[in-house]
């Protein structure tokens, strides 16, 4: 073992009480960081997943017919949402645009859709619904509805439809039942329920009805047309940037999930910043702890440091002896702290589960988290050892031996 390591480790072992106490402090600090990151990371991941599981990342539609209020353009939005669904327009030359859009970097999948408002009825039961007319093979790559079909099958040929779990209850309809779908201007289609889906979002499950593209085209009077192109991108937080790029490319209006879910993003961001703040304070506390322990140690050992210098160890070696102590405290603290944090996170996850047994607070214990926390702890150890170590390395040996 190199000299510096030998002396550093012996010093840590020799002042056991100090070492154990500061290790406990570092471990608790690291475990707080791990636990907090795992919990908030898990919450964010599940919020994002829940949101993105039911939504395309980007939606392209003709400019004058954006069916959503846009926060950035309040005035025009107020007008557009008042327009009735009957005036739904097809995207001009949508097949060409679809081809172009699919080739854009970052776009993973694109699917043409016709989306509009209608009523679904079975017997006396009648409900307002959102008709989502899709090309099933393309759409499943944008939003994975297939895996969410809980009864029946993901099949949309002829006059098959899929309805939400909630809607199925409200209409009292089963797989195989016939349902009538009609629009405000009197067009209607008689369809057969092939599957019931559960997208995990109550309002969607009570409203959405997936139909083959052709039925949508008929219902909303746009033969061969598509009112929207919906996309999935590779990197979800790139959606807004890609959306802008696509809007430029196609001349269509682009809506990214990020724009639509601005509130969610604001929430995530403020979570992120409060997490960061707590972490910063933990880091500062841990750093101060390590630094103060090492400063005390340098003062206590100044005569010994003088002796080390007298017998021929360079000031660089003395510097490293104390840096290593800081680094080792960080490393050991990060190992214990990671274990502690992971245990605490898993315990917390078990503590609260939803009715289906899935955790209410899913935690995200990724390897990167542990690598990051460990690197952070070792970094804190080294940085906080810097001051004491410099002080030790600059001790004048003659004075230290005389007065130490």
């Amino acid at each position, binding site marked *: 073992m190199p000299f510096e390591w030998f002396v550093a480790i012996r010093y840590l072992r020799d002042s056991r009480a100090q070492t154990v106490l500061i290790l406990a402090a570092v471990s608790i600090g690291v475990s707080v960081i791990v636990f907090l990151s795992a919990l908030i990371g898990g919450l964010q991941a599940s919020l994002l997943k829940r949101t993105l599981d039911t939504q395309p990342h980007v939606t392209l539609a003709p400019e004058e017919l954006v069916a959503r209020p846009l926060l950035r353009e309040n005035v025009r939005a107020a007008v557009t949402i008042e327009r009735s669904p009957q005036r739904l327009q097809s995207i001009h030359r949508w097949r060409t645009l679809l081809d172009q859009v699919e080739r854009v970097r970052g776009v993973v999948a694109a699917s043409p859709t016709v989306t509009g408002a209608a009523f679904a009825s079975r017997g006396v039961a009648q409900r307002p619904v959102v008709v989502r007319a899709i090309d099933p093979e393309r759409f499943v790559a944008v939003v994975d509805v297939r895996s969410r079909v809980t009864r029946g099958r993901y099949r949309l040929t002829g006059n098959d439809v899929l309805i939400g779990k909630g809607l199925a209850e409200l209409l009292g309809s089963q797989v195989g039942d016939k349902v009538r779908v009609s629009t405000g201007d009197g067009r209607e289609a008689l369809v057969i329920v092939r599957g019931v889906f559960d997208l995990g979002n109550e309002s969607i499950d009570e409203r959405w009805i997936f139909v083959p593209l052709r039925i949508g085209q008929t219902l909303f009077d746009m033969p061969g047309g598509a009112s929207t192109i919906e996309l999935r991108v590779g990197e979800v937080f790139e959606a807004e940037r890609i959306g802008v790029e696509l809007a430029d490319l196609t001349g269509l209006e682009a809506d990214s999930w990020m724009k639509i879910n601005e509130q969610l993003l604001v929430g995530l961001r403020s979570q992120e910043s409060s997490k960061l703040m707590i972490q910063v304070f933990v880091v500062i506390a841990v750093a101060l702890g390590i630094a103060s322990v090492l400063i005390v140690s340098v003062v206590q050992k100044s005569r010994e440091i003088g002796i080390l210098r*007298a017998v021929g160890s*360079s000031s660089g070696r003395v510097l490293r002896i104390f840096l290593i102590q800081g680094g080792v405290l960080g490393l050991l603290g990060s190992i214990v702290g990671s274990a502690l944090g992971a245990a605490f996170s898993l315990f917390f996850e078990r503590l609260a589960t939803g009715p289906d047994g899935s955790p209410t607070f899913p935690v995200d214990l990724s390897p990167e988290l542990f690598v990051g926390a460990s690197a952070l702890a070792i970094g804190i150890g080294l940085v906080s050892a810097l001051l004491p170590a410099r002080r030790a390395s600059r001790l*004048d040996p*003659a004075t230290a*031996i005389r007065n130490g």
Partner: protein
Amino acid sequence: MADEEASVLRVERVVKDFGEGIVTRVLHGIDLELARGELAALIGPSGSGKSTLLNLVGLLDRPTSGRIVLSGRDTSDLDDEEITLLRGRLIGFVFQFHHLLPAFTAEENVVLPSFAQEGWASAEMRRHAVEVLAAVGLGGRAKARVTELSGGQQQRVAIARALAHRPALVLADEPTGNLDTASADEVFELMRTLNRERGTTFLVVTHDERIAERCGRIIHIRDGRIVEPERAAPRALGGPG
């Protein structure tokens, strides 16, 4: 060159001042030479500058003016790193209070100088350390923590530590000053034996006339100057007995 080889230490006109503003001159132009294999006592009243001189010779401190030549190397122009290297290689220290490192065993303390200089401890270093410990009569206590040893034993470990890396010169600052008479005699005899058998050069600071008289040479210092024995110690005129 031959002349330089015979001389382990040459101190030339060394002056040492302490303090800034109000400067105290502690050493007033010291000239001193030690030949290889000498056992010299440096004797003088408290505050006369013995430790100061030893620190300069041991390269723990630098003179205000004058030169210190160790084994033929002028040390005046060396930078701190070179000084540290040379100190580690040429000098062995024994202090009044043993100044062993309490966190380490006797053997580890003895290995320390070589270890600190090389950066690595070889098996050979460890073997040699045990050998030197045996030479100072502590062959059986190599694995003992130094805190478990008696004062005399600790000082022997300190001597072993000073010797283990085969320095050209061992500087001992009142090595027996903190021991009872019997232990002091033992420790001093040990140094004398090592001097005789290994030819190690010793410069030993002591208050103790009894011990000084057993050294091959006595150097008197008073108020920061080397003085003739007659003037330093009038009692010695009558001779022993």
